[in-house]
């Protein structure tokens, strides 16, 4: 374990998260919750678990908002978190050159590079073993395609100039040519949750994995069906049927007679009596009215209020709106 005590990691956070709008109109993408936890916390916790002591976030958007949250995580997790801010977009390799001084220390230990949009089981310990066994410069995880998880020796940094560069198109081919690039098949699930459709599928895969590894974290009871995650500070009323594949965040109130399936209910949401929600994401502090029916990839941004008896079929609603008329087919409500 001594080998691991100084390992570092870089998480590519990148830009504006426009594909996850309207959620990213309220928070930068890494702080958008997934399974009741900010997306980036899933990665940081996985790194902490295998002994990484310092994580560098490569960002180019809203550093102030990020830095506030990071202070919180730093103290709670006991891991050092810093930001490396791009002043111009540097692609997928440029940020490594920018953070060079933080990543390459005298220990010569390899460092991880993760993509902040990716959710997986993060078999990082296995990856370290794999990397040491082949002795090459770079290891990448693949799952039919590049999974966006890399373990690289500091020597890779010598190959990257500080300019917009793609690690996949420009750097890896060179390393492969030198016979120094090795690929490991990613065991377990993998999902790029950078857009709502994949976010919802990703939750199913994640909860499935949780069922196998730590089933005690999932909810149980007569009103629960399949895999359901409920924050300890959420309240659920009588006569509900929740699940499968549902996450209910802190401070949520689910009133009686509510049906929820394949959906994410974010912090502070109130779902009123007799409502029915499926395949949707309900943003922070929103409310869904009595007898409302919300389905088919409806995404409610922060502070959206769906009135009683309303039907939303795929409505994508920007923050701070009130929905007083039914949305009969998928539509963006600005």
């Amino acid at each position, binding site marked *: 374990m001594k080998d691991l005590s100084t390992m570092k990691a870089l998480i590519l956070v990148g830009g*504006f998260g*426009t594909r996850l709008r*309207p959620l990213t109109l309220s928070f930068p993408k890494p702080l958008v919750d997934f399974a009741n936890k900010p997306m980036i916390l899933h990665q940081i916790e996985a790194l902490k678990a295998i002994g990484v002591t310092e994580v560098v976030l490569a960002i180019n958007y809203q550093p102030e908002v990020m830095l506030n949250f990071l202070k919180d995580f730093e103290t709670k997790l006991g891991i050092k978190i810093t930001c490396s801010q791009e002043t111009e977009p540097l692609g997928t390799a440029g940020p490594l050159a920018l953070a060079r001084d933080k990543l390459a220390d005298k220990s010569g230990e390899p460092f991880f590079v993760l993509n902040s949009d990716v959710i997986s089981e993060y078999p990082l310990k296995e990856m370290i073993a794999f990397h040491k066994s082949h002795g090459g410069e770079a290891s990448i995880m693949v799952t039919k395609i590049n999974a966006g998880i890399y373990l690289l020796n500091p020597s890779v940094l010598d190959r990257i100039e500080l300019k917009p560069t793609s690690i996949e198109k420009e750097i890896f081919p060179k390393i492969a040519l030198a016979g120094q690039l090795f690929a490991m098949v990613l065991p377990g699930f993998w999902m790029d949750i950078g857009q709502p459709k994949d976010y919802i599928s990703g939750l199913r895969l994640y909860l499935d994995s949780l069922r196998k590894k730590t089933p005690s974290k999932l909810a149980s009871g007569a009103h629960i069906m399949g895999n359901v995650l409920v924050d300890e500070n959420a309240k659920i009323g009588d006569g509900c049927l929740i699940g499968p594949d549902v996450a209910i965040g802190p401070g949520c109130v689910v009133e009686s007679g509510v049906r929820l399936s394949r959906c994410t209910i974010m912090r502070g949401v109130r779902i009123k009596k007799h409502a029915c929600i499926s395949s949707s994401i309900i943003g922070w502090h929103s409310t869904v009215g009595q007898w409302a029916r919300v389905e088919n990839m409806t995404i409610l941004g922060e502070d959206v209020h769906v009135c009683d008896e309303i039907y939303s079929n795929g409505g994508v609603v920007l923050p701070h*709106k*009130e929905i007083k008329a039914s949305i009969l087919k998928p539509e963006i409500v600005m």
Partner: protein
Amino acid sequence: MKNSEEKVVAVIMVGGPTKGTRFRPLSFNTPKPLFPLAGQPMVHHPISACKSIPNLAQIFLIGFHEEREFALYVSSISSELKIPVRYLKEDKPHGSAGGLYYFKDLIMEDNPSHIFLLNCDVCCSFPLPEMLVAHRRYGGMGTLLVIKVSAEAASEFGELVADPITNELLHYTEKPETFVSDLINCGVYIFTPEIFNVIEDIHTHYEDRANLHTLSSSEALWSATKTPAKDFVRLDQDILSPLAGKKQLYTYETMDFWEQIKTPAMSLKCSALYLAQFRHKSPNLLACGDGTKNPTVVGDVYIHPSAKVHTTAKIGPNVSISANVRVAAGVRLMSCIILDDAEIQENAFVMYAIVGWKSSLGKWSRVQGEGDYKTKLGITILGEAVTVEDEVVVVNSIVLPNKILNISVQEEIIL
């Protein structure tokens, strides 16, 4: 008797950020009152109109946007006008009459004999001196600016009935379900200080009785408990309606243009109306050129002095180009607003569109709307820092900030 030493103040209601999502996506980057129409911030037009009021002592902007948003503008306009212009921030929305009352002491500081109350998002010729003359003649407590519109349009506004001889306001109703009249409230008023007593009475009235109001949805949205706070006083329902027919309120009809600027599409239309007004009143503000030393200019066009426009570009009619914009060779711009720092590359075409700050339009790109100012996708709006790549066509679409369009789109909202 008219006292030439009597002071007058003007109050302009500028609203705030939680209300009105209708100005998205432009409102993501700027408070609506500061959005440029004909090259000047929206609020600049009513302020400018106030210049012609005799004995104007102060101008107040009242709203609940953050103070720092207005700080720069307010200090520069005060210097320019040599009249104090102050931004007063409400801690929460009080309604148009409530806001006036909330700052009563400041407004009455110079003991003004008359108070103009204007809404920032109204686009009109603001005939303020003429209104004041008429108001003095009527001798009432308040005078409303009114205008005739088509019968269908009237139902969207406050409809009123006025006595054709005395011009007294006889009857007023906000957004009625059945037709009342084709005369509507323009949102520009003059009051004597008595108005404060009237508002005060309403406060006490609210404290005494139970809340039985039906609220408009926007008000319901503001209020956490879905009932009006006692200090939320609306001008139309609470003041104008009850006082109609009591020889207190009068009307002054304008024959010029009038529009409400509620959406980005309307801001494009109103920018054109103000450009036409410049043609009439201050033609030196408009650009001209024939393709020799300057680009070819057709109709009413405003070009900020720092903008660089190639001589082979053809600009207009109804185009407004903001600071630091670069327009390359062979570009055609018609009926559009190009916001600060945008770049328009060679041979691009823009019509019925708003191009956002720092955006970039590629060579031979085409960004256009059909020019319907009333429908959701009637013009094309590009938010801040949107890139349209070479040869891409964008029609009747709204694009949120920081997007890159590399394929053509029609009738879409792109988040």
